[in-house]
């Protein structure tokens, strides 16, 4: 009973943090950005008419509110239904993915804006400095991520002496390795791929890449530790805490990712004097 109440409490935190506080903060940041850098002075920043941005904000708020309502409904159901908690981790994970959906849709909308910017921009800027992966990766964090990842190998070998299902924990090794390869490819494409914002200052781009690299390393560390925790819970027969750990994991990911999406100390002057871009 205590475990179920604990899960409900942590699940409520998940609803409030991701669909409540973070969603509200994101919209407030977007509005504040529009007020500080209005389309009249920074026309290159807004390739679409103002109605488009209002629509994007409204859709994001509605989607986040709906996710919040779904969360409350699930919570009420959990509180009023007798259960053994074996599905708690699936509920936390499934709902966590649902909560991230508005952010994913927002990101798609941002991609469309950047594409429009590229289509309308009549000038292109580039830095005459070669970019390398190691220039954007923080060394200490990279070392820590490697250490944590490598420690997963002896951990799985250790766990193998217990009667652990799912290939004796090796599946976690495969999943974490695949995730790290995916992160590497993602960062590689960002570093060596097409410049998405044609007006972006070179130093701002470098800073953005460093932030992204830091985020991916932190997520890699968090995911590896989470995999170890999940295996440990199973091995030491603490599966009743699995739901709580999944919910906390999603909250941690959200807290890690949040600052990356709200960089304010950028050079916005590059978006000035773009009458051609605005009228297109």
């Amino acid at each position, binding site marked *: 009973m205590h475990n179920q109440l604990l899960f409900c409490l942590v699940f409520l935190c998940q609803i409030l943090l991701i669909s409540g506080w973070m969603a509200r903060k994101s919209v407030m940041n977007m509005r504040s950005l529009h007020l500080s850098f209005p389309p009249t002075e920074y026309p290159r920043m807004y390739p679409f008419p103002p109605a488009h941005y209002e629509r994007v904000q409204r859709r994001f708020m509605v989607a986040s509110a709906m996710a919040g309502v779904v969360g409350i409904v699930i919570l009420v159901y959990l509180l009023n239904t007798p259960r053994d908690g074996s599905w708690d981790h699936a509920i936390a994970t499934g709902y966590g993915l649902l909560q991230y959906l508005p952010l994913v849709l927002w990101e798609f909308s941002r991609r469309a804006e950047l594409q429009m910017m590229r289509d309308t*921009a009549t*000038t*292109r*800027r*580039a830095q*005459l400095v*070669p970019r390398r992966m190691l220039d954007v990766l923080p060394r200490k964090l990279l070392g820590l991520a490697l250490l944590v990842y490598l420690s997963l190998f002896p951990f799985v070998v250790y766990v193998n002496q217990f009667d652990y299902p799912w290939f004796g924990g090796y599946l976690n090794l495969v999943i974490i390795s695949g995730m790290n390869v995916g992160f590497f490819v993602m960062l590689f494409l960002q570093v060596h791929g097409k*410049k998405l914002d044609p007006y972006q200052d070179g130093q701002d781009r470098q800073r953005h890449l460093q932030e992204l690299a830091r985020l991916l390393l932190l997520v890699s560390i968090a995911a590896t530790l989470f995999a170890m925790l999940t295996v440990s819970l199973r091995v030491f027969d603490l599966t009743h805490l699995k739901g709580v750990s999944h919910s906390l994991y999603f909250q941690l990911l959200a807290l890690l990712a949040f600052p990356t999406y709200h960089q304010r100390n950028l050079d916005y002057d590059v978006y000035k004097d773009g009458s051609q871009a605005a009228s297109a």
Partner: protein
Amino acid sequence: MEITIDLESPEPLYAQLISEMKSVIQRGLKKPGDPLPSIRQLANDLDLNSKTVAKAYRLLERDQLIQARGVRGTYVHPEASVDNSLDISGLVTEELSQAVRRLKASGATESEIRIGFSQVMKQTS
């Protein structure tokens, strides 16, 4: 340091790229031996075809302003002189002269060459 390309300028993109890079080197913002971005990186950053950037790099290399060092990348030429300037019209004249000489040697008349040149210009414009 950054370079800027104007897509609406009548000047060809590769020529703009050459003059921008030359200006950076001439102003001393890039010193001999300094590394330069790869063709792919510059093409992606400027949203240009990599063949355009490769052509600019090839001509800059011919003029000894930059130096390709295989897999190690491209660098400002150790002997990149500040008054080095690329003669585009001279290059066009030289290339066309060679082609005309070859055609004449193979038996083509002047009028055939003119008609052929005119057709090629129409097809490629």
